């Protein structure tokens, strides 16, 4: 399967923001997709598979995440990551 690139946006809705547990869930899923995932906010960029880098963005409720994925099934990876954020990080 050839590598593809895909992107999408999602707003963090849960009241607690992207604290450590949601950041961990996001990073785990990003790793599981097999894609290179980047997350961009107005505060900067982060490797989507790094809990540390995601925590560094200080993402609170209402922040828009711009997610890009590069790799096999990138579109599916972005869709699943957006779903995770929209679900309030319920896995």
């Amino acid at each position, binding site marked *: 399967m050839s590598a593809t690139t895909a992107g999408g946006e999602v707003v963090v809705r849960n009241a607690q923001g992207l604290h*450590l547990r949601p950041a961990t869930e996001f990073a785990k899923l990003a790793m599981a997709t097999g894609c290179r995932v980047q997350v961009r906010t107005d505060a900067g960029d982060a490797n989507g598979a790094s809990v540390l880098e995601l925590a560094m963005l200080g993402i609170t409720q209402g922040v828009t995440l711009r997610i890009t994925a590069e790799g096999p099934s990138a579109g599916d990876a972005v869709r699943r990551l957006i779903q995770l954020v929209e679900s309030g990080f319920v896995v």
Partner: protein
Amino acid sequence: MTLGLLASHLPRARVFTGLPALGKEDLLRELIHRTGDTGAFGDCDATTVLRAVLKRERVGSTGIGRGVGIPHCKTPSVPGPVVAYGRAAEAIDFGATDGEPVHSLFLVVSRPEDADMHVALLKAISKAVRDDYYARILRNTADADLLHDLFRDLDGIK
């Protein structure tokens, strides 16, 4: 000098080094009880905080890598966000994401309504851990005064 977010929540009295611990729970108990002894938790007793922190750890380790953990919990009983630093006498297995033993813990206890502050404190600590220079100092320094100076410096990291 105006203190930054982390420094203003982490007074010298809550920087502990040489914490004896045989394992993860031991280390958390030691750090939380010493923090409680400073009066930081107000009317909330340390055992309640320990129970909440252990419950959170069961969901998943807060060992974020590079030998650092950020155990935390939310409880309405504390007077405001409480941060404490504890350094283990010897690094211990903490179930961290990168599998590395943990030498340093940043305890963060906040009220449920302080969610944004909680995330801001996590951000400040994560930045320090991500920075190679500060991560190296954290790994190699066991002197509480030096560490406290470091925390005052950390807020300047971009």
